[in-house]
Structures are given as C-alpha cells and as structure tokens.
C-alpha cells in the first residue's frame, strides 16, 4: 500500500433521514496512529457519521476508504479491523462478564489457546479480570465501559471508533479511561472519539473535528484550535506592578488589541495583529512605553470557548 494513501479518507459523505441531512457533505482524512476527537452538539451528526464509518449504516452519497478499501461497497473486508464502541451499552441478561467476552472472542473466530491468550490480554488491559464471574447487568457504569472497551479490543482492531466513551463516568473512571486511550495510542491504534466533555478531548486528541448541523466546521490539530483557530488571534494575560490604568490606556490606544477582561493587577487582552513577530514587536513597545509589566503570557482558550467561537464561523470546504 502506498504511503500517500491516508489511513481513513472520507469524501462528501451524505446521510438523509426523512428529508433532513443528518450528515451533509462531510470530508476529511485521518493519518494512521492519530487520536482524533469528534466534537459537536446533540444532533450535529456525530453518531450518524461514526455509524457509517463503522459500516453499520450506508451513506446516501460519498465514499469512505480505509487503507484504500471502499468500506461502503466492501464492508465485510474491513470489519475485522474496526472496533466499535457505541454510545449506549445494553448488557445481555443471564450472562457473566467471562461468558460475554468468551462469546465475542469466538464470534471473531478465535479458538483454544489463541482465544485464552487474547482474553487474558484484554482482561488485564481493561482490568475486568476481577469481574469475570459477575453478571454483566450488575456492573457499575465505569465497569460496564471497561467491559465494552474490552469487547471492542478483542479482535485487535487498527481503527477504534468510540462514541461518547466517557459519558456517565465518575472522575476516577474518566482518568482511567484517558490512560487507556493513551496506551492504545502508544500501541499505534488510530482512534476516533466523540464526546461532550470537550476538555477531556483536548487532552487526549491530536486532532479535532468540529461538526455542526451535519457539516464539518473545523478540522485541525488541537493546539491550533486552542490557540485561536487560524493563528491570527491570541489571548494575552498581562500583569503589571502598581496602577493598572497606564496599561488600560496603552491597550485602548493600540488598534490591534482588545481588552477582554480588566483584572486587579493587569488585564486579559486579545491580540489580533497577526504573526508571532508582530506580537513580539507589540510587547517590546509596551515595555518601552513605560508600562510596569512584571509578567505576560499567552493563554490558551478553553475548548468549549473555541467550539462556541468556531460555530459562528462558516464551515471548511
């Protein structure tokens, strides 16, 4: 396989439900080994898009290629390479955790020693060994999510699609889950995660895809999005010694600055002057003009703020 072929290539994906375009011309590429977050409000089309990527739904138009294989036309060829963790998990009645994993291992074609080895691996990795004889409908939410991840990993997939995996988890379970994703990334898995808890996605993901009303609004690496999308805007936190008024006057006179918050010992201001060189020139001038600056640093936006801001912008084409 040529190295120029992206691991996942999605082109002009469209899915309609009763006339409404739930997914409307979505296109993006994912490189192998990336951890990608899919962000969007309820009804943005995240789950519909993920179901199509998992070969569980057919698009009305568009193509999805996993390592060059058209998964819309040949879903059976790629299913063994996909791990799908849905946003809701219905336990089987009258089934223990061990039986559940044993069944899915067999359903993936594992038998005998291979099955035993794989079950041991995923049970240790997700820490479900101690739950082996528990009925699966008597597990806590965190335990259920671990079991669900164990099931997802049984066939050792290259591509993991995790739909709202952290929903309903307590802080400890969330931390554990983040660690699991980190380890999976180290093992070279390509992971697509959707979540409402945006701060967590910011920490886990290399790249973020923002969806709204079925379309991709933004697709870029996490740090760029947190620093202000296109790199033309950044938020500076400036601390002064003594009076704040000289700083506020200076900022008010400069057209490339906009005060977003006046603080007790300084200000938070947005610089829209362009490149890092322009910012350096401005900061030099601030000191030269006699403002008693004792500290300044660039602030990252919270992902929630970035998300809300980006929703106001036109989608990427």
């Amino acid at each position, binding site marked *: 396989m*040529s190295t120029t072929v992206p691991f996942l290539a999605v082109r002009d994906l469209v899915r309609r439900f*009763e*006339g409404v375009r739930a997914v409307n011309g979505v296109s993006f590429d994912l490189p192998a080994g990336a951890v990608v977050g899919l962000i969007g409000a309820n009804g943005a089309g995240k789950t519909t898009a993920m179901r199509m990527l*998992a*070969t*569980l739904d*057919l698009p009305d138009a568009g193509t999805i290629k996993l390592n060059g294989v*058209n998964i*819309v*036309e*040949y*879903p*059976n060829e790629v*299913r*063994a390479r*996909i791990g*799908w963790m*849905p946003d*809701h998990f*219905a336990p*089987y*009645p*009258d*089934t223990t955790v*061990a*039986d559940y*994993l*044993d*069944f*899915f*291992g*067999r*359903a*993936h*074609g594992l*038998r*005998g*020693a291979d*099955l*035993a080895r794989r*079950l*041991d691996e995923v*049970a*240790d*990795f*997700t*820490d479900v*060994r*101690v739950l*082996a*004889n528990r009925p699966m409908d008597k597990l806590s939410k965190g335990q259920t999510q671990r079991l669900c991840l164990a*099931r997802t990993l049984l*066939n050792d997939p290259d591509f993991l699609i995790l739909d709202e995996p952290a929903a309903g988890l307590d802080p400890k379970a969330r931390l*554990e889950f983040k*660690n*699991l994703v980190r*380890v999976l990334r180290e093992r070279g898995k390509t992971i697509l995660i959707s979540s409402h808890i945006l701060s967590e996605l910011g920490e886990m993901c290399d790249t973020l895809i923002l969806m709204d009303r079925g379309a991709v609004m933004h697709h870029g690496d996490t740090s760029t999005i947190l620093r202000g999308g296109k790199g033309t805007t950044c938020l500076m936190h400036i601390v002064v010694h003594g009076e704040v008024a000289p700083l506020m006057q200076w900022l008010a006179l400069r057209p490339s600055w906009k005060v977003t918050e006046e603080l007790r010992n300084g200000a938070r201001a947005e610089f829209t002057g362009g490149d890092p060189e322009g910012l350096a020139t401005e900061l030099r001038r601030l000191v030269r003009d006699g403002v008693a600056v004792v500290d300044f640093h660039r602030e990252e936006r919270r992902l929630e703020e970035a998300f809300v801001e980006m929703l106001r912008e036109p989608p990427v084409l």
Partner: protein
Amino acid sequence: MTTTNPSPSTFAPTIARGDFPAWLPAMLVKELRQGLRARGFVGAFIGFQVLMAIVMMVGAAQSMLGSAQARALAFNTANGFFWTLITVQLLLFTPGRALGSLQLEVTTRTVDLLLLTRLNAWRIVTGKWVSLMVQAVLLLVSILPYGIVRYFAGSVDLVGDARQCAALLGGAGLLTAAGLWGAGLGKVIRILGVVVGVFIFGGARGAITAFTSGGLGFAGIRWAPGAQSLVWFDGALLIAFFLVAAVRNIAPPAENHTLLARALPLAALLPVPVGAILSGPSVAMTAQLMFAGFFLLLVCMTQLASYDLPMSVHFRSARRRAAGLRVFLRMTLPGWPSALLYTLSGALLWLLGSALLRIPGGPGIDLARASWLAMLMLTGLIFPCVVMAIAPQKARAGAGVYMATFVTAGALAPLAYALVSMSSKIATLKTVVAVLPVSSAIFALVEPDAVSAGQVVAQGVVGLVVIGAAWWQARFYWQHLTGLELRERREATAVTAG
C-alpha cells in the same frame, strides 16, 4: 489503570482447548448459555416437573383406591396434562421466546455488535433457532418419564406418542422460525400475530393428532400415499423461508440472502418431476404442485416488493464466472428488476411442472388453463412494481407501496361482485374489472368458466403491457449495475497499472 497479575485464569475454565463449546458455533453457545440460565427456561422446567409429579401422585392414589371408572379418569387426567404441557411448551412457550429474543437484540442494537464480528445475519438467526429447539427438546425429554409412567395407568401407544411428539416438534420448529421473523415486524402486527397464534393453538393438538394418525382432521379425509412425507419436506422449506425472512430483517445491506429465499419455492417444485418420473402423476404430486405455486407466489411478492439496489459486493463473485452463470446470478441480486427475471423463470418452471403432470391416465392438469392462470398471476404480481417505480422516492422504502397497490387492485374484484349483485345495470363493471391486474386472477380462480374469449384476449394485452412497462422501468437498475461493473473494472485496472 492498574494491571492485575495473571492469577489462575478466570476465563480458562470456559475456554479449555477441545472443550465442547469449541466444537459448536459461537452464536449457538452464547444462546444456549443464556437460554439455559433464563428464568423462563428454569421456571418452566421446575414448574412442569412439579405439576406432572402432583398429577401423577393424584392419579396413582385414585388408581389404587378407586374403581375402574376412577382409574380411567385418572389416566385421562394424566394424559390430558401430559399433552397439554408438551403442546404449551412447544407451540406457545418456545415461539414466544423466539419473538422476544431477536427483538431484544434489535431494539438494544446489540445486533450491531454481532454484525461487526465474523457472524452474519444468517448465523445469528439460525443460532437462535437451533438453541431454542435444543431447549424445547430438553424440556420435552424432561417430561417424557411421566409419559412412560402413564403406561402403568392405562394403555399407551408409545409409537403413536413418539410420532405425535415429533409432529409437535416440527410444528414448534415452524412457529419458532415464524416467531423470529415476527420479531422484526411492527408492534401492532406482532400483537395481532400472538392473538391469532393463541386461537390457532386451540386447534393445534387436534390437527397434529389427525396428521399423525393419517387423516386431515375433518370429513374423514385421509392423506394420499406419500403426501405425509411431502408435508414434512414442505414444512422444512417453510421453516427455511421464515428463517430467511428473519435474516432479511436484521441483515445489513451488504449481505445478500436472496439466493436462498428464491431457491426455496423451486426446491418445493422439485418433487413434482421426480415423483412424476418415478411413479407417474398422483394426487400428492398435484397437491405439491399447488403448494409450490402458492409458495412461489408468496416469495415472488416479497422479492418484487423490494426497491433495493445492488452493491458491488453482491456481484463480486459473479465477475469471473462464465456468461451463462452470470445471467443466472443476476437473478439472485436484491431489488425488484432482478426479482422480475426470477418471477418469469419461476412461472416457466411451474408451467413445466404442470406439463409433466399432464400424462394420460393421471389426475391431470389443464395446461392451457394453468398457463392462463400463470399469466394472470404474473400480471398481478408485476403490476405493483410499475406503480412502485413511479411513486415518490420516499414512499418506495419498505413494501408499503407494493402491498397497498396489490391489495387495492385485488379488492376491486369483491367490490365489483358486491356492486353488481346490488344492481344488474352495472354488470359491465364486472367485465372491466375482470381484465385488470390482480382482480383478473381472482376472477379466474373464482369463476374460471365465466370469462369470455374477448376478456381473455384483453387480459393477455393487459399482461403484456404490464410486463413490458416493468421491463422498461427496470432499465435504471441494469444501468446502475453496469455502472458499478465499469467502476470496478476501472479501479481494478488502476490497481494493476499502479
């Protein structure tokens, strides 16, 4: 995340090399493990044992202490309980569990997780069916000792009882398959199905007793020689039909199960030439031909009602085949135009079967009349496709447009009968309706001799117009198929060149 040291493997006992489950399909193992622990199974198992033990003890006490009349009563009571429990278990309890079992997988979307493994829809459905039948047999076997105990209370026909048990198991297999199919239907239809099933259940025991004793259960009619074997054969085909229908309810679009669905009525037709050649025409063969005809009608309806388009994956296996086989494989694709080819071929085969039974001295079939009837049936089956093709795109999903057209066109016949019976002034209405699609077939079945030569010609013209229109409207399908084939070929060439 903490990592537990691999202490004695908790999973090991269930996965030892060469263990019994390793020999069985994964879905069957899962269903058996789940089913044998289910409260429904355990409760029924214990309940049946307790009930039969009480009935037997009461019966034994009556037999020892009472008169001959009391002993006869005790035997009849024990006998009644024994058969009622078996019938309830096999014909109500097991199909009911089938209905709930697959429905749960669909509503909780666990079926998605199954379809992402190596299991396909067929393995899922058959795994459930086999598991339910195994559980039914286990329950039956658990009650059998009481059947033998009855021997001491009165005269018991062990061979007859075994035949009845086998017939009940056959019935359970059929109803369980129907239950799995019903799981994919709407709630109202499911409830209606259960109500109808309970009513049918009332007469089920009598029918099965009559069947195993060689009669039809009414008017003293006896089975024709060989007919009972054919009933078993046809029952098996019907089970397969319901299982395929259940598979279609859950199968993703990439899975194509039309080949099996369309092969079943042709398999039902197979005993006709075999029987005609080996032992000549007989009543049993004529009945089999009729059954195959109705079965073909049913399957053609379900297949023609689909507006699905084929995917590349459906005809990939056909690409490197000989031209003749490729034409045949075009009859196995999803969607009504492919089903149209199949319907025409099926009708032709059915007529050939009719011709084989037209041997002098045999019960005979009027070939001209059979051909005429087949033509009218074809017109009726294909006409809704023509309507479906011009219906708005949104309305085509599901079988709604096809079924609504078929039922409406069919309802014209009884309507015309009713109106003409009220006023003879509109007698021409009947003449007109008798040449329209669907209703013409009903007229031909009800009043075959009342149709004039002019009407037959008109029916023929209508039939040719309907089939021609359907053929014309099917162009989009074949163009789509050609487009897919060309794209496949282009991509294959690009890969080779690359």
